[in-house]
């Protein structure tokens, strides 16, 4: 069965990958797609409602909302990918080590996971930001540093079931070292669940970033992000509905896209979960 056939069979996944690709294009082509300069202030045209000239209206400084949202897509994806990357790397290494070695190494790592899971994630992120500056890099890394626990559990479970398999014994028999076995022999077999976790993780990271930016502790203005446009939406809630409606819709569509793709990949790779 080739890729296209598979995609066609799973229409929801097709829709998800379509949305994900669309967003990727929008963020790559932002400089050409945005009708206006996203930082162009026009105080004579403040909070203008959507029109042919400004499809999604203008914000409190007269900037074109559509242009800011197009640039915001770039920020969202950047945060989503980097944060997820950090979480996946930490989660995979810790999960692989815990699952492969077992014993006290496993106990120590898993107790650490238990402890991290006690913290309401949003509290932990906010507390760390209170001590560091809320810059886009800090945000990405903090979201990643507080989001690896699920990946660790997943990878560990995979490693525990894989480490007793014959191919691992064979690799040991020919004298392969632990690192080689972990990364070259077992890890490729665990990639399926990591890929699913990564796809769903991007969605989660984008949601978290937007909430942080909305609260004013994420991506800082004047850099446009969907979350901080929504802050302006809240400040002008009684006069400018378009500032609240469109950026949120963009977040929703993005998250739906990544979730559909992630669940599609899971169904594809793990036939047991299919109904």
């Amino acid at each position, binding site marked *: 069965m080739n890729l296209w056939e598979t995609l066609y069979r799973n229409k929801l996944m097709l829709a998800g990958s379509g949305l994900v690709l669309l967003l990727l294009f929008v963020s790559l082509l932002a400089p050409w797609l945005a009708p206006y300069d996203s930082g162009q202030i026009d105080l004579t045209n403040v909070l203008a409602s959507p029109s042919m000239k400004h499809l999604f209206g203008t914000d409190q400084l007269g900037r074109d909302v559509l242009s800011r949202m197009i640039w915001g897509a770039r920020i969202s994806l950047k945060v989503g990918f980097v944060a997820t990357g950090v979480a996946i790397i930490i989660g995979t290494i810790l999960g692989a080590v815990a699952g492969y070695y077992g014993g006290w190494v496993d106990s120590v790592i898993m107790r650490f996971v238990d402890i991290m899971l*006690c913290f*309401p994630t949003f509290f*932990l992120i906010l507390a760390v930001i*209170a001590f*560091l500056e809320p810059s886009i890099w800090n945000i990405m890394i903090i979201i990643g540093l507080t989001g690896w626990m699920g990946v660790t559990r997943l990878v560990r479970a995979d490693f525990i079931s894989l480490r007793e398999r014959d191919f691992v014994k064979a690799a040991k028999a020919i004298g392969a070292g632990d690192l080689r076995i972990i990364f070259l022999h077992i890890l490729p077999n665990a990639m399926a669940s990591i890929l699913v976790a990564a796809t769903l993780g991007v969605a989660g990271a984008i949601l978290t970033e*937007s909430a942080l930016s*909305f609260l004013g502790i994420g991506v800082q203005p004047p850099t446009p992000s969907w979350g901080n446009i929504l802050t302006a939406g809240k400040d002008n809630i009684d006069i400018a509905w378009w500032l609240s409606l469109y950026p949120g819709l963009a977040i*929703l569509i993005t998250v739906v896209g990544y979730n559909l793709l992630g669940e599609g990949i899971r169904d594809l790779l793990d036939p047991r979960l299919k109904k």
Partner: protein
Amino acid sequence: MLKYIVKRILFMVPLLLGITIICFFVMHLAPGSPTDLQTQMNPKASAQMKERLQALYELDKPIHIQYWSWLKKISRGDLGVSFSSDHRPVADKIMERFPITILINFLSLLIIIAVAIPIGVLSAVHQDSLFDKIAGVFVFIGFAIPTFWLALLLMIFFGINLGWLPISGLRSLNYEYLAPWAQIVDLAKHLILPLFISSFGGLAGLSRYMRANMLEVIRQDYIMTARAKGLSERNVIYKHALRNALLPAITILGLSIPGLIGGSVIFETIFAIPGMGQLFYMAVMARDYPTVMGILLIGAILTLIGNLIADVSYAIADPRIRVS
């Protein structure tokens, strides 16, 4: 049973220690020392004051001694004094806001249980029906929607366009002049949107979980046995299947507690509810470190207690757990 509870509580001790270590680590993330930042914001701070603060936080001592004396302090319930202009003890500031946050989270949990379980069970019993499909879409959107955005939309629609519900605070300005029953109505009206928002995310998770659980239980042999001995479908589903499907949901509810508490920052800030979440947000914005640390610690301890309650309820409901 008692033995099980004691075992669970003992198991909490290392977790609790771990929590304090992470909190302590976060506290030392700040570039420079906490006192630098405190004095930087205050141009009047003298070198002498800085020294006094240094001594107060024992920053001149080795790190393990700092940790030990901090641990001794927090175990007495002393979370330090707020950096904000009121200089009140952090523990007092948290305690006065604690009840409202707990009340909203508790009510949200009840709403989640009351709504999500029937949705999940009905979806499973009528698998692939129109209801199941609609519920599926609802669950999917529930996972993807930013709740703060949903809150904004509801505020615009119900608060501004229709004017039915208040959009901020817990009480109207004329609250004190209202009759007692009108006060309750007033409070309830203020709580509708925040409660809807705080329970929304959890609804999706639990209903999906209930559906999956119920589907699994329905396929078990004992359900077939129940059907085979001629019990009515109603009896089979609601007596035999539901009980077994409900058990694991207790754990899921326990796991949803950190999310609920974390979410309180968002909805309390949006709806201007004077709870712990709003205090946390204000403390983060003002870099009021003792308050930030205090709430972070309390949030984690609340989660720990929530998990303990979930584990114990599970053991009460399911004898297999406490025996093994």
